[in-house]
Structure formats: C-alpha cells, structure tokens
C-alpha cells in the first residue's frame, strides 16, 4: 500500500520530471545559466574577501607580528632577563619558535635622500624560525648572527629603483644591496652601514623596516644587553594561539601578552569590515538570485496557468502541483550550483591564480572550500525554493475556471 502523501509526492515527481524532460532546451539552459551566474556571484565575493583576509592575516603573522607578541607592561619599556623568559616560553606546549627584538628610531640617508625608520635589532636565527622575511629577499642576503656594520632594508625604505611601490617618494629611492647608507640613531649614534640585502614582503608595515643583528644593535645601544623591547612567538600549526597566550601570562607579571590579532588591530578592524561587507553582498546576491528565479518561475507559471487549471480540474491536488514546482526549482538550483562550483574551481580560480589581484599587503588569491560552496548551494536552493513557491502559490489560488479559460 502506498500512502496518500506518497502518491501525492509520486505525482509531483512525475510532473516535475516530465516538465524538465520536455522543457524547451533554450529556456532550461538560460535558467540554469542565470542560476549558475547567481551562484558564481555567491562564490566570488566571499572567495575574494576570504582571500584578502587570509592574505592580510598571514602577512601579519609571518612578517610583522608573529603569532604572539610580548611587551613590557611596566614603565620600563624593556623586558628584563629575556633569556630566562624565552627559555620558559619554549618549554610551553604549542610554542614552535621564539625570538627577541629591540628597536630604535633612526634617520637613514643615501646621497640626497633621507627617511625615518624604526631599526630593529634581531637574532637572525630566531627571526628565521618565527618570520618569513628572509624568504622575501629581492637583493642580497638576510642577516647572520655575526653581522656587524650591515643592515637589511625593506623595499619601502630602500626604494630600489621601484617607483611603483607605495612609499617610493618617501624612500631612499635608489639604494641597492652593496650600497652604503648612513644611519643616525635617536640616541645620537651615527654609523655607516653596508646594505646586505633588501626584502619585499608586500606588507607595507614590514617593508618599511630596517633590520640589524642583535650583536650590532648592542654596539649602538649597549644598555639593552640582556633585555628586549619585544618577544615574538610562533605557535605550532595545531595549537590554539589564545591558549598559548594564556599560559604565557601565567609565567610572570609585568608582561603584556598580545595575540597577533590584538597587536595588529588595524588588520582586525579591516577583516571585521570585510566580514560585514561580505554579509551585505551575500544578502544582495541572495536577493538577486531569488528575484531571478522568481522572474523565471513567474513567467513559466504564467505560461502554464491553463495547464495548472487542467491538472486541478482532473483532481491533481494543489500540494502535488506545488511540490512539482518546488522540485523543478530544486533541480535547476542544484544544476546551477554544480555549474557555478565547477566554473569557479576549474576556471575562475585558476585564471585568478595566474593573474592575481594585487593589494597593499600582497597578491590575493581567491579562497574557497566545500563549506563555502555548500553554503552558496544552500543559499541558491533556498532562494530558488522561496522564489518558485510564491508564483506557484499565486497560480494555485486562482479559480480553476479562471486558470483554464482566463
């Protein structure tokens, strides 16, 4: 025995199936194409914004802040006995690498050009373990622990004859690896340095820095020996940054422990804004997709008003007819979503990867994954269901005689 509801669904599936099979191929292709475009729209904008956010976050973590930053919370801006602190931090589970930095403001000059920078004294080996700046050298090489009288400059400081970079007009413009620059520190020390290398991470804040070795920094500012202005930590990929930061806070008082998101507040504010923009655009996209499906279904239902009237006159229930329209919408939405997903993954993303968008923090690659594609498909499906329900419901409210004979 088949239940009444099952028979009703059986008829709905039959009507939807024959309607799709016997539909005009041009109309089917147009409908699927419109839905696929709406689906692409649902994938592209979040993909771009997710790419932007991921790139910005990666740049902050890998070239600017590290995963966790520790600063002094006391009046003395230096963290004392930093070696002991770093050893204790390294013992915490989830910590992958630790390095220290000291900083001093300076004016750097070359020929007739001069610019102000923050010079960081770094431990090159630790720096390479926490950051990826050494992998972005466009000229020369990165620092070694034994380097003295050598400086590594960001491209926004050196200029490097690249007039298209963002801060070129404020840079030294024509400095290259091997040139000699003059550095006048805020503490009155003035030194000549050989430019050992120039890095270009494409993250402006990083590329506006100058780096010297810890050994060199202590010759410029001997008072900082054994202390650091900040400690930078890289966590293991499977570790929770917040959890590791919490454990560090327990180690000793007088420290300000910040996650990379806290440290680079501008990026957090930017990513928050991107999420808001993403949500707004998604709502707009859903409306566009919904209205598109509504128009397609409305025209279809209007053309089939007489058929609907006949179906009702011969005893087909309203629910069967309604479900048949919803099934058609689901079919078109699924096909549209599949086309959109495939076009995005196999056409749009590879093309964009070849010609990536360029932003102030680097090249941005479209991001997507099963959750994003599934979400777009669900949104498209929901929009299609609502948009097909309304015109079908309106048609089914019409009197049978009016539907058949107008």
């Amino acid at each position, binding site marked *: 025995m088949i239940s009444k509801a099952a028979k009703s669904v059986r008829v709905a599936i039959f009507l939807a199936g024959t309607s799709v099979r016997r539909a005009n191929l041009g109309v089917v292709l147009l409908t699927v194409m419109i839905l696929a475009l709406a689906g692409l729209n649902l994938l592209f904008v979040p993909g771009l914004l997710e790419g932007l956010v991921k790139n910005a976050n990666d740049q902050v973590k890998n070239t600017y802040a590290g995963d966790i930053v520790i600063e002094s919370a006391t009046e003395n801006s230096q963290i004392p006995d930093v070696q002991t602190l770093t050893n204790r931090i390294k013992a915490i589970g989830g910590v992958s690498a630790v390095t220290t930095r000291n900083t001093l403001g300076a004016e750097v000059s070359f020929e007739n050009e001069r610019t102000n920078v923050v010079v960081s004294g770094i431990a090159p080996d630790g720096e390479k373990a926490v950051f990826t700046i050494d992998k972005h050298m466009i000229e020369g090489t990165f620092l070694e622990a034994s380097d003295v009288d050598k400086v590594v400059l960001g491209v926004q400081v050196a200029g490097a004859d690249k007039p298209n970079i963002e801060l070129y007009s404020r840079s030294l413009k024509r400095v290259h690896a091997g040139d000699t620059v003059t550095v006048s520190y805020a503490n009155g020390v003035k030194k000549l340095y050989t430019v050992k290398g120039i890095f270009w991470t494409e993250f402006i804040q990083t590329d506006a820095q100058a780096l010297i070795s810890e050994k060199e920094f202590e010759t410029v500012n001997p008072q900082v020996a054994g202390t650091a202005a900040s400690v930078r930590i890289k966590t293991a990929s499977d570790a929770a940054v917040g959890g590791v930061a919490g454990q560090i806070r327990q180690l000793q008082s007088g420290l300000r422990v910040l996650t990379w998101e806290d440290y680079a507040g501008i990026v957090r504010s930017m990513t928050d804004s991107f999420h808001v923009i993403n949500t707004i655009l998604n709502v707009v996209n859903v409306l566009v997709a919904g209205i598109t499906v509504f128009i397609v279904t409305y025209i279809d239902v209007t053309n089939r008003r007489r058929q609907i009237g006949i179906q009702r*006159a011969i005893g087909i229930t*309203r629910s069967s007819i309604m479900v048949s329209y919803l099934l058609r919408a689901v079919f078109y939405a699924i096909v549209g979503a599949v086309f959109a997903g495939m076009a995005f993954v196999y056409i749009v993303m590879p093309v964009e990867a070849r010609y990536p968008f360029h932003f102030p923090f680097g090249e941005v690659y479209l991001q997507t994954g099963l959750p994003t594609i599934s979400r777009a498909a669900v949104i498209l499906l929901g929009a299609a269901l609502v948009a097909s329900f309304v015109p079908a419901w309106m048609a089914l409210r019409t009197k049978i005689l009016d539907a058949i004979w107008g």
Partner: protein
Amino acid sequence: MYDVRELTKTYHVGKVRIRALDGISITIPRGDMVAIMGRSGSGKSTLLRQLGLLDRPTSGQAFLELKEVTRLPEAERARLRLSCIGYVFQEYALLAELTAHQNVYLPGMMIGGPTDYKEQGAELLRLVGLGDRIHHYPKELSGGEQQRVAIARALINSPKLLLADEPCANLDTISSRTVMETLVRLNKEMKVTTVFVSHDPSDRQYAKAVIVLSDGKIAEKG
C-alpha cells in the same frame, strides 16, 4: 445519483449582473445518459461545471450520492473530482508535455497502486480505439483522437459520473460520431452515469434523457 436543487449562478461583468443559472433543479439517476442542450449562452456549460465541482454556485444545493457538495472545502472537492467524477473538456485539455498514455494515467497515479494505473491507462486507450497511439504526444494526434484520450483519462479512476462539455464541438462529423458512440458504449459497458452538453440537436439520439436550457432556466425536460 446527482440531485440538484434550486441552483443559481450569477456573474458580474463590470456593473452588469448576469444570471447564468436561474433556479435549476434536476435529478440524474445512476447509469443514465443525459444530454444538456440549448443555444449558446443558455447556461449548459455553467451547469456542467457546477456538476463537475469546478465552480461553486451562488445559491442552491447539489447532492452527489446524497452528499451535499456545494459547500465542501476545496481539498474534498478535489478528492471527489479525482475519484468520483470524470470530466471531458470541450477543447480536449490534454497536458502537452505528456504522452497520450501519461495523460490518461496521471489522475490514476493519485489513487492507484504502484503500477496498476499504467496497465489501466493502456487498457482504456485500447477501449477508445487508441491502443496503437499510446506513446504519441497530443500535438501528434487529431482532434478526435485527442478527445478520445480525454475520455480515457476521465475514466481512469472508474468514476461514477462522466461529464463531457461539448465533446464534439471542435470535431468533424466522422470524429464526432466516433466520440459520441464511444461515450454511449462506455455508458453501457461500464455503467458509468454520463452527462454531456451539446448544442447540436442531432446528438439527442445518443441520450436517454434530455434537458434543454434557455436563459439559465430549464425550458424542456424529457
């Protein structure tokens, strides 16, 4: 079988009030073959649509198998249209996307078993002389063939009542005779009560009883 009492139907076209049915009372016995005749605009089709539960009257009552049907909710009327009433429209009213076979068995899917409606549909098409056209689409059939498909469809759920609204209006003489003879044969063989509307006086020959309407009123009964 069907008892109609003081049925009226009034339409409003703009400010003009049209009384399409004016106090119609008729009784249709089980197994009868009734012709509703009259000139164009006399109310024949309006009455048939009332009997077929496609429209509601302005006033009056109608009892199908002793059950009052004018005030039933739409879902219940749809169930009766499906299981008790077969309706043949003047202009065939087949679904263009379905084959003749599918058109016939579609209403059967609503109440039939897993596959029996398909066999029954094919059998009905053979019964109306279209056993070799079951996989043809409506546009591939002549007017007379389409009307016979519509008759087969109307019979798929073994209705107690078969209603045909000017079934030969768009057909040539030979096709008209085939369709009317099919109705008569089905009335005899299947014992299905049949009511058909016609404006052609020669169709009286097919009916056991005739009701003639004029201006929405019964002008002649016999």
